[in-house]
């Protein structure tokens, strides 16, 4: 659809949340928890942290939660009775106050989960989620969205995007049908925006660090370059922090939890950084050392996904670098690869 521009007063934001809540929408938004910012269900605007650079966790949990029940079963004397969870049984949800990179991150997830056989648990949740992103007025040295085709005002993946253009006013971009439908709930609070507003003036300046095409090309050619991966990953300790804060990492694991009578099947986040990820029952591990796992992480995002799904698996949010306990800086590493 054609995008529409409107103006909303900052002072009306709290009414927005009230409207959503009173119309039965759960609202997921960034919430400050000590030093970290989580994406959580909120009751009112007060709880929402809009002034943060970026939430610690990405917004992917809206459609791909860290623990997801997909099946329930009971164990009889000789038979197992199954009670599948209905993927449709999730509410229409609003994801509010996230950043453009979070919104655009869903396009990687859409591609992964949309591949046949399509993953209904993800898709239904995604379908029922309306994303209101806030463009970025600030950035830090870890941000590199502009290097991977995004930007602080990138609207891809968002249904609505809000940009602060003055102390009082927010520029509202209505980007999709879903967004337009939702905006009806607060149409009375919107006023027309002049077409002359230059949104880019209000956005952070994120320098391009590398050419993504070059990274894709060099990565694809570097599978056998063991030294490269080893040098980059010597200090990597193999935790899953990067994958778990990443808006595009989609690896998961299934685990059954049961007692003698009942059981459930859970889908859980997993990470290719774990040695256990590829461990065979035999004891053999095809990705035996950390450098191979690091290679997998980079290649998956910059070689395999572009090749198979035609999308780069990175939004340049820099969360992985911020979360990394040993300062594995992805921007730096990708820049290095691009310069090979």
């Amino acid at each position, binding site marked *: 659809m054609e995008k529409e521009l409107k103006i909303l007063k900052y002072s009306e934001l709290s009414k927005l949340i009230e409207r959503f809540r009173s119309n039965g929408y759960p609202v997921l938004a960034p919430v400050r928890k000590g030093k970290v910012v989580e994406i959580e269900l909120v009751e009112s605007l007060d709880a929402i942290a809009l002034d943060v650079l970026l939430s610690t966790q990405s917004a992917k*949990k809206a459609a791909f*939660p*860290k*623990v*997801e*029940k997909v099946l*329930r079963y009971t164990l009889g004397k000789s038979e197992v009775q199954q*009670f599948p*969870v209905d993927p449709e*049984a*999730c509410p229409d949800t609003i994801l509010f106050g996230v950043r453009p990179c979070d919104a655009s991150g869903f396009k990687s997830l859409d591609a992964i989960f949309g591949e046949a056989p399509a993953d209904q648990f993800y898709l239904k*949740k995604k379908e029922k989620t309306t994303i209101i992103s806030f463009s970025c007025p600030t950035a830090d040295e870890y941000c590199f969205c502009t290097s991977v085709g995004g930007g602080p005002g990138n609207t891809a993946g968002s249904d609505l995007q809000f940009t602060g253009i003055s102390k009082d006013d927010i520029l509202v971009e209505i980007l999709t049908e879903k967004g337009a439908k939702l905006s009806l709930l607060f149409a009375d609070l919107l006023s027309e925006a002049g077409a002359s507003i230059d949104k880019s003036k209000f956005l952070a300046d994120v320098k391009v660090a590398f050419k993504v095409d070059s990274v894709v090309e060099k990565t694809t050619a570097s599978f056998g370059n063991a030294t490269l991966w080893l040098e980059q990953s010597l200090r990597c300790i193999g935790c899953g922090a990067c994958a778990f804060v990443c808006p595009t990492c989609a690896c998961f694991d299934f685990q059954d*939890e049961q*007692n003698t009578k*009942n*059981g*459930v099947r*859970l889908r859980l986040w997993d990470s290719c950084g774990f040695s256990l990820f590829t461990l065979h029952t035999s004891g053999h591990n095809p990705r035996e050392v950390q450098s191979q796992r690091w290679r997998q992480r980079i290649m998956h995002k910059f070689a395999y996904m572009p090749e198979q799904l035609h999308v780069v698996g990175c939004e340049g949010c820099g969360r992985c670098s911020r979360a990394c306990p040993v300062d594995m800086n992805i921007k730096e590493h990708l820049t290095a690869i691009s310069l090979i």
Partner: protein
Amino acid sequence: MQDFEPKIVAFVCNWCTYAGADLTGTSRIKYSANVKIIRFPCTGRIDFMILMKAFENGADGIIVSGCHPNDCHYSTGNFHARRRWIVFRNLLNFTGIDTDRIQFSWVSAAEGFKWADVVNNCTKKIKELGPYENYNKIAVSTLFNEEGTSNE
């Protein structure tokens, strides 16, 4: 809470407390049926995680019992166990887990009466404390209802 029948699991060593509980039986001393015994070779074998498993599978109380110090069939298992419990109890208490719900005791093979006392007193205490609601909220069984953890 009058009709609350707590689930209490007793982890006992084979040589002293299990035999002591046998003696309680042989002596026909009555005690509360809420307590059920699981036999271990020695208190030294009782992994602290076993206690956590009991709580999360719905136990309201736990008894851990073995040979008196110096009486261990394997001579030192209970000493090692005691150290482990000292530390573990500290940790449980620090994380807000109710150590009143775990009763540690030394019951020898000759202490049939003591076993009955330990069981009855523990049952009485757990009845007063009521079901372990804090832990029940995160117990295994919470997954099995229809809602459960679907979107956290």
